[in-house]
């Protein structure tokens, strides 16, 4: 339809002519604010005194924006902003739907609380190495991954948070962290490269990488395209990121080596991004392939749950134990993906929110146990019930939460998932979820028995390493426990948000309409 000479070209066919409504800028706020804060912190890298305060201010503002975004998305459906004025699928869209907004809000809360804890945990040397710039840039990558509407852009945000996490991982002075960082860095790089391979093929098949556009074109492709290969590649790549068995050995090798606040952030956020990407790609873009892969995902979920929790039972280092419990939680979420209906997905999403809060809190708790007891090892720890009664109360509540017992937040997602598995005729999967819960209770019961209830033996070497647990650490722990308890005691709003998010994945018509307003499928 070449225009005749002299006629003005109607730019509206290719370019967005109306400026973005100011309120829609909210979509990129959870990415832009930490990014700008990170840039400011890099510029002020020698002013170690103010770094923490600036990072906290930036992350607090991020929470406000993420909360506003979540409220708007819940009220009126997905919000989209397209960069560079090119209409999608050519311009890169940021699209916040219920799932992305929910997870980005939770992630921003966890990031802020970890930054709060870090004020007492990261010394001058760590600040000089750039802990706070890395922290805020990682939060920018995490926010971008949850909110982007383009597969290649998702890859870019993966790389942003992965390279920032490399920086965070090597801050410190312990040699084990270098060992852990080598394994973490190499295996994560291979995982993102696999993701890129799958994305290259996806582009070759569809000629587009916009998620909404992919969803529209999927139906038209039929059986000629190698969709099963693509789905399996994505399953391996994101499964590696999410720490699913058998591609999860980088996690227990590295997550216990850095500063405790870094472990907490990684444990809380990074595996959940892998899971989010699995949900987005397999459920929204390739539902038929997810259905075909469902038995495989079910077995992966069961193996991840059981081997994770058995690994936790074999550890005497509390940090490593928490790492293995985190892995078994990934299995619980994957069981929701294996079931794949509205109930299963909402259970997985609910568990992701719970796991972000509680795993972060567990790592922080491990740090506080080290402060109060002088060691991370269950062989050495004793008598904490006497010495730190408040810590004991927090530890008990967290143990209930992670094991899925009331009043903790783990109860409701597990109820939803067990019921969804039973309804889908996968009783064995429900049984594995319940057995995992029991074994988790045993693992944490033993921590309580040995570290808290065991009578104090006089150990001068240990006494020397004890120090007072900072009040700020308690504040951070309580700030994480409060939403977790709220979810355990009054689950209604959380369950509703998760159901809404799952519905948006299964029936993404509002999402597609928001990306392509007023245009039918080509």
């Amino acid at each position: 339809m070449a225009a005749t000479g002299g006629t003005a070209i109607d730019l509206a066919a290719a370019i967005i002519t109306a400026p973005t409504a100011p309120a829609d800028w909210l979509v990129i706020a959870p990415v832009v604010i930490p990014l700008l804060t990170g840039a400011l912190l890099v510029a002020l890298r020698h002013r170690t005194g103010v770094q923490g305060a600036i990072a906290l201010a930036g992350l607090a503002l991020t929470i406000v924006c993420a909360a506003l975004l979540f409220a708007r998305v819940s009220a009126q459906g997905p919000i989209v902003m397209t960069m560079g004025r090119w209409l999608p699928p050519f311009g890169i869209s940021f699209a916040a739907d219920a799932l992305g907004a929910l997870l980005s809000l939770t992630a921003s809360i966890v990031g802020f609380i970890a930054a709060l804890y870090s004020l007492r945990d990261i010394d001058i040397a760590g600040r000089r190495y750039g802990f706070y710039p890395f922290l805020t840039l990682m939060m920018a990558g995490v926010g971008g991954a949850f909110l982007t509407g383009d597969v290649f852009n998702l890859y870019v945000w993966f790389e942003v948070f992965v390279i920032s996490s490399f920086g965070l991982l090597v801050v410190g002075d312990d040699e084990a962290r270098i060992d852990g960082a080598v394994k973490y860095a190499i295996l994560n790089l291979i995982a993102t490269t696999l993701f890129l391979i799958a994305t290259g093929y996806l582009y070759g098949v569809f000629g587009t990488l916009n998620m909404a556009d992919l969803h529209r074109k999927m139906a038209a492709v039929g059986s000629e395209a190698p969709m099963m290969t693509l789905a399996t590649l994505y399953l391996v790549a994101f499964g590696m990121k999410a720490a699913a068995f058998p591609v999860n050995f980088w996690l227990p090798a590295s997550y216990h080596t850095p500063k405790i606040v870094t472990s907490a952030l990684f444990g809380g956020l990074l595996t959940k991004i892998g899971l989010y990407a699995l949900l987005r790609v397999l459920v929204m873009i390739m539902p038929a392939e997810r259905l075909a892969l469902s038995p495989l995902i079910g077995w992966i979920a069961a193996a991840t749950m059981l081997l994770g929790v058995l690994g936790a039972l074999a550890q005497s280092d509390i940090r490593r134990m928490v790492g293995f419990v985190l892995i078994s939680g990934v299995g619980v979420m994957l069981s929701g993906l294996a079931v794949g209906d509205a109930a299963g997905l909402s259970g997985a999403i609910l568990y992701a929110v719970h796991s972000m809060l509680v795993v972060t809190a567990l790592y922080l708790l491990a740090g506080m146990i080290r402060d109060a007891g002088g060691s991370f090892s269950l062989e050495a720890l004793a008598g904490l019930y006497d010495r730190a009664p408040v810590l004991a109360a927090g530890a008990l509540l967290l143990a209930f939460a992670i094991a899925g017992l009331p009043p903790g937040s783990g109860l409701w997602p597990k109820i939803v998932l067990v019921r969804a598995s039973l309804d889908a005729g996968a009783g064995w999967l429900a049984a594995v979820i319940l057995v995992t819960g029991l074994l988790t209770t045993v693992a944490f019961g033993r921590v309580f028995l040995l570290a808290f209830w065991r009578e104090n033996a006089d150990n001068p070497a240990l006494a020397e390493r004890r120090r007072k647990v900072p009040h700020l650490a308690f504040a951070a722990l309580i700030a994480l426990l409060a939403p977790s308890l709220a979810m355990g005691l009054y689950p209604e709003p959380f369950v509703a948000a998760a159901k809404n998010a799952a519905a948006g994945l299964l029936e993404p018509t509002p999402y597609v309409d928001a990306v392509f307003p007023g245009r039918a499928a080509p």
Partner: protein
Amino acid sequence: METALSLTVGLFFIAGIYLMLSKHIIRVLLGIVLFGNAVNLLIFTAGRVASKTPPIISESAYLPAGATANPLPQALILTAIVISFSFFAFLLVLAYRAYNDLGTDDTGRMRLAEPESENPPPMGY
């Protein structure tokens, strides 16, 4: 053209995966470089190698006159090159540091973070 490129991509993948199976970090890193370049070529091939004409549309037209080269894969590859280059630089420094600190580049002997002789937790007290 696409066939030749596809075969090249396959060879790159084979060599990259073979190197990554090594126990020595430096070979793994070389494997990762080959792997990364294989992906870049893959994206380039996936965008079809059809024409050498640059994709410039005249001011009075909606569409280019004939077939043009596809600019999008090149934009994707440029991004991927920049990212993989910075990752590789970081990994090289990290591997060198690990070799200095741990005294080995054999992954089988890098057991500082996961010691072989770790006791299981006590059975009681």
